């Protein structure tokens, strides 16, 4: 039996398969090496990097909710210089494209971090975080208005020759308008969705559970929202989409692909099953074989009305 072709290309980044890690859920690649080799992945998206080191938010940072996880990590990272010096070089040993997620407090910082990351031979793409719900400045503040989102993407594009992926927030009135604006500004691909803004209250203490008060909701609870947004945005832009939000198994991944995603990313699913990405890759291959699909790209946007 012939082998199924799972390869995809996103913004010029050639990937063996469409399964990626979601930023902030795979550290800098080292946490899961005991469970599977990073080279098995389509692409490795590492933790969000900022210009200066960030300590992140105070504890508690996590709350489990029904079929979901609320987090308020707060973009904890060692800063771009340390990432370039210590965390990225070891990734050169793996045969996998590395994509770095980045954020800034100001437009200039987005540009500066992008320029610095572009000096690394390991980095094959930049994912621009304009959607983190857990920081006061930057993040979501840049991603909730089309014109502001476009300015961030133009600034990053002006500072790099690498493919630029814009990571969009679901916490907006019209995600299609943001998607169209960042495509116009030169984004080469889109990642969607980041987490949904949420909150939990400790009724005995009469206080919010998270030290940061609010956090981002991920996990199976948000999947229908993500699938709908991928479906909607796929009808409004021409650039490829990376679908994410609550992918736990191959059926979830296929929903995103059939909604219009060229690739998918796993975050919370990895926390539950440390071999989730590997299981998805095998599952996609099995599904294609059973369905007589030769290339995974045939399934992109396959859902029709």
């Amino acid at each position, binding site marked *: 039996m012939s082998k199924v072709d799972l390869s995809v290309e996103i913004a010029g980044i050639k990937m063996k398969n469409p399964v990626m890690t979601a930023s902030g859920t795979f550290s800098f690649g080292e946490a899961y090496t005991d469970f599977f080799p990073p080279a098995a992945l389509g692409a490795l998206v590492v933790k969000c990097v900022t210009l200066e080191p960030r300590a992140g938010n105070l*504890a508690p940072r996590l709350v*489990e909710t029904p*079929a979901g996880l609320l987090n308020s990590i707060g973009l904890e990272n060692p800063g771009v210089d340390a990432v370039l010096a210590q965390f990225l070089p070891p990734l050169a040993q793996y045969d996998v494209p590395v994509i770095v997620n980045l954020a800034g407090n100001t437009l200039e910082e987005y540009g500066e971090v992008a320029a610095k990351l572009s000096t690394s031979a390991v980095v094959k793409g930049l994912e621009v975080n304009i959607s983190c719900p857990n920081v006061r400045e930057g993040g979501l503040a840049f991603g909730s208005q089309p014109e502001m989102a476009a300015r961030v993407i133009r600034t990053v594009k002006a500072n790099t020759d690498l493919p630029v992926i814009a990571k969009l927030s679901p916490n907006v009135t019209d995600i299609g308008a943001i998607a169209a604006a960042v495509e116009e500004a030169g984004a080469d691909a889109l990642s969607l969705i980041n987490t949904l803004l949420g909150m939990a209250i400790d009724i005995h203490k009469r206080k919010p559970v998270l030290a940061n008060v609010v956090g981002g909701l991920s996990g199976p609870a948000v999947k229908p929202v993500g699938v709908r947004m991928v479906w909607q945005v796929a009808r409004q832009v021409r650039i490829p989409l990376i679908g994410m939000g609550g992918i736990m198994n191959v059926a979830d991944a296929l929903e995103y692909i059939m909604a219009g995603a060229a690739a998918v990313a796993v975050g919370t699913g990895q926390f539950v099953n440390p071999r989730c990405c590997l299981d998805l890759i095998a599952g996609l291959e099995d599904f294609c074989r059973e369905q007589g699909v030769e290339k995974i790209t045939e399934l992109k946007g396959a859902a029709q009305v």
Partner: protein
Amino acid sequence: MKYHLPAAPVFRQERIGQNIYALTLGSREIAREAQPGQFVHLRCGKGADPLLRRPFSINAVQRETGAVTFWYQVVGKGTELLSRVRAGEYLDVIGPLGRGFQTELSGKKVGLIGGGMGIAPLIFLGRELAGKNQVQAFWGGRSKELLPQFTPSTAFSAELVTEDGSSGRQGLVTELLAEWLPRESFDLLCACGPRPMLAEVARLAREREIPLQVSLETVMACGVGACLGCTCKGAGPAEGQQFKVCQDGPVFWAAEVDWDE
């Protein structure tokens, strides 16, 4: 090395107290490599609710049979599901995880201070240390029913107190420790239990300048250092650090922990 066993067999599940259970599962890999203070990260159900794994400190391992035992108390959805698991069924487990207690010791006098479920990892530690060291344990609980029932190890001696005096002497384990400290010179203390108990043990140890290792408990998501969710504030030599309990701990030197957090 961390291992993921999607279907580890359950050897035994025993009720050892009010809502307290000892579960033994089979994993030669985990039994072989586990160190006292390390934990296993377990999926309690098969569905999406509860979503996350639950961490449990290892209580005992049998390297020959691959038996790995941990204790837990039913406190929520996850542990409630776990309590219904029977021998012969299978559980999805990752382990051994985290940094355990220092065990490369000989000729030392070591004190173990365990409160309630916190006794579990210290029994593993006591057995490991007892051959080459002199070990004295102090166990405490709220009452007889809320204290896990177990056969005391013959490898080391232990004193027991309960808050209501229903088992052992009446009192707090920290009071028991405070009585002992003036007449025994411990080289090292190791503690596990509720946070206020640990903070008090840390205070007593600091007063007498005895090195103390504590095992901390937090909510965790990944358990392997990826999500950065289970933080604990560093102090002293670790001032300004945000430890990850799953990876940098769960065992820490008390002097590195910010007890005011």
